[in-house]
């Protein structure tokens, strides 16, 4: 499939080319003479200055953990160890991941802006993921062959001979809740609230060093360049060729940016995000921090939108299948649960606030889990939750839900 997809960079180039030839006075992007390259390629002395290996590693670790959550051979300890990997522990199928000193858990709810002075919430969030693992192993794995009913964990098959889903007593698939919550707690939080934050980009002597082209140790990049690239890596780090991303390179943010872009109501969002990453990085090279920060705000707005659109989309998908195909409904609602949870890591541009606070998010997830959870949920409640979310954004429930 992917080989047919035009790379975003190709589109960016074509878009610029065709618009540049159009001399009817269209408003150019104000970039203070900072020019973004066509692709995410930045070099110093003919060698690349781009590096985000740690992000690629964590994305790949996260994929193995999510797969591990539906392998009943795994114990709670096995999965906990994968989640909180330590260097050279034999946790993964990929030797390179085992050798790494990185772990997923250490970067969950770990951004400078949101959690440096809020370890209390950070601990609760990390333990929420621990609980998903614990309940999956202790309550769902033993019921793998049981038919799920209201209040009873087990398996339930989608219509049309479709996939079999494994749910807890309330109909929640922990593997989906884990994966979609991780998009917020790891990818979105690290990108929006850590690496694109001035507190990180401008930390210590970063500005002076970047201005004077003082490199980070033996590396070929300045620290500020590297921080920006690490943000880039949490979205594009699993691409075959990250300089020309095609998206859907992982099951996390990469996939869902593509999905939202595929909705006519939001088409172009993927290109907007990529262009902002390129221009912001070019601005760092040009030492223009106003342009850099303007791009960070664009990325914050757009990626926050992806989480909200996808949350509402799955709430509405769940609503459409309630009653006729409960397994499909539960699958969609489990994805929705994770995306709604992830809203607390979004970032309103120009502020240090999420679109929905932790407390607001927990009110919504609590509504999903009231009583026997998805077995009891009503279409009206799903609409109310959808509308509560869309009211904080510039789109409607109907636009997101289609």
């Amino acid at each position, binding site marked *: *499939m992917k080989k*047919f*997809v*035009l790379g975003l960079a190709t*589109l960016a180039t*074509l*878009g610029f080319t*065709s*618009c540049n*030839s*159009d001399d*009817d006075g*269209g408003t150019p992007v104000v970039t203070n003479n900072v020019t973004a390259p066509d692709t995410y390629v930045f070099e110093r002395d003919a060698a690349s200055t781009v590096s985000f290996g740690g992000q690629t590693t964590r994305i790949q670790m996260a994929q193995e953990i999510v797969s591990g959550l539906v392998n009943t051979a795994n114990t709670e300890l096995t999965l906990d160890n994968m989640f909180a990997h330590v260097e050279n522990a034999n946790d993964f199928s990929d030797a390179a991941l085992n050798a790494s000193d990185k772990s997923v858990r250490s970067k969950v709810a770990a951004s400078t802006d949101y959690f440096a002075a809020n370890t209390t919430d950070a601990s609760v969030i990390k333990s929420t993921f621990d609980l998903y693992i614990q309940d999956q192993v202790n309550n769902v794995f033993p019921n793998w062959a049981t*038919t799920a009913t209201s209040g009873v964990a087990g398996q*339930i*098959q*989608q*219509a*049309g*001979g*479709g996939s079999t889903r494994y749910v807890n007593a309330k109909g929640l698939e922990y593997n989906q809740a884990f994966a979609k919550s991780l998009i917020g707690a790891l990818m979105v939080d690290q990108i929006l609230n850590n690496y694109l934050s001035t507190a990180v980009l401008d930390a210590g002597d970063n500005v002076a060093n970047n201005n004077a082209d003082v490199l980070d140790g033996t590396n070929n990049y300045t620290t500020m360049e590297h921080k920006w690239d690490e943000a880039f890596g949490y979205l594009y780090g699993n691409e075959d060729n990250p300089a020309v991303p095609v998206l*859907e390179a992982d*099951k996390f943010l990469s996939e869902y940016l*593509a999905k939202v*872009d*595929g909705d006519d109501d939001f*088409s*172009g969002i993927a*290109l907007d995000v990529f262009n902002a990453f390129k221009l912001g990085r070019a601005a760092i090279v040009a030492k223009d921090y106003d342009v850099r920060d303007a791009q960070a705000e664009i990325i914050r707005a757009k990626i926050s939108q992806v989480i909200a659109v996808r949350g509402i989309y799955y709430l509405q998908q769940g609503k459409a299948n309630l009653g*006729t*195909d*409960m*397994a499909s409904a539960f699958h969609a609602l489990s994805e929705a649960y994770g995306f709604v949870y992830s809203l607390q890591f979004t970032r309103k541009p120009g502020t240090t606030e999420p679109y929905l606070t932790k407390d607001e998010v927990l009110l919504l997830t609590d509504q999903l889990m009231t009583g026997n959870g998805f077995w009891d949920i009503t279409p009206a409640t799903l609409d109310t939750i959808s509308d509560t979310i869309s009211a904080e954004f510039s789109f409607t429930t109907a636009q997101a839900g289609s």
Partner: protein
Amino acid sequence: MKKLAYIFTLMLIVAACSGSDDSDNGSGSTPDNYNRAAMQTNLADNIIIPRYQDLKTGLETLATLGDTFTATPNQTNLDNLRAAFVNAYKDWQLVEPFNIGQAEVLQYSFQMNVYPTTTADIEANIANGTYDLTAVGNNDAVGFPAVDYMLHGIAATDTEILNKYATSNYAAYLTDLIAQMNSLTQTVLTDWTTNYRAVFISSTSNTVSSAVNKFINDYIFYYEKGLRANKFGIPAGVFSTNPLADKAEAVYNGTISRDLSIIALDNVQNIFNGKATSTSPTGEGFYNYLIELDRADLATLINTRINNARQKIQVLNADLKTQVETDNTKMTEAYDALQLVVISFKVDMLQAFNVSVDYVDADGD
């Protein structure tokens, strides 16, 4: 889907930036004078309802011969029942595209033709002796694929199959399967003749919920999923790392899947041309609709592409599972020819009709 989205993005960029020629095409502002009610009436009265009546007759024969067989499970009765199964399965091919009205409400096609059937579920149902055949989780243990298994797959030889029917649970399951198929079909047919026909021929506006728009979408979805993907793409391994020959249709019978697919493709073409059968004159339908919209080029191209695809299918083994196992290239060639029609339907025809696609690809996770 995804690649189209990018291509559309590209088109939008180019369109938005390519100078001052303000021709405002494709916005749907052109009024559409085609008589959609006449098309719907032709579809309902000459195609949809008669095909359901044919299927109902075929299933009643199947039930009768099924009763004869379960009362006296001998080779003659088994052969007669198998022949009735093949005939009814052919009748089914002609109604599968009509996932509208009660068929949609009941998820009729999910209860009639989900394959591969899950034989472990069937055997578990038989062993338990109690089951709810309408349960969503039994979609892959009922319908034609389940009957196919019951008549050809439950044992290696006919003698052993006949022995199985000495056990009352096997006989009961077969009887219940056929009764369920009859009951569902009767419900759908009765709704068409007493209720839904009136809705179908009067709901002709160009909105996402009108019967015309839904029917067009159902038709294309069936072509893309039910015909192209299920009968060819999935067994040929188009969507997987390796071919999955066992996912072909009617694998236990093992001799009819090519013919079923040709019947299905003929049916798609007849619906397109508004014809009751291949030898009927062209009636009101998508072909005439395109002609009315000055798109004779596209109307002709679609028929040409369907004819090309049929030629690619006609050279295949009578059993598509065998074809995958012996020369899968011919399968993928047939798939490729079928895929060209998807593009004509889903992109060009829908654009001409100014109708939006109302379904999206499943997540796949």
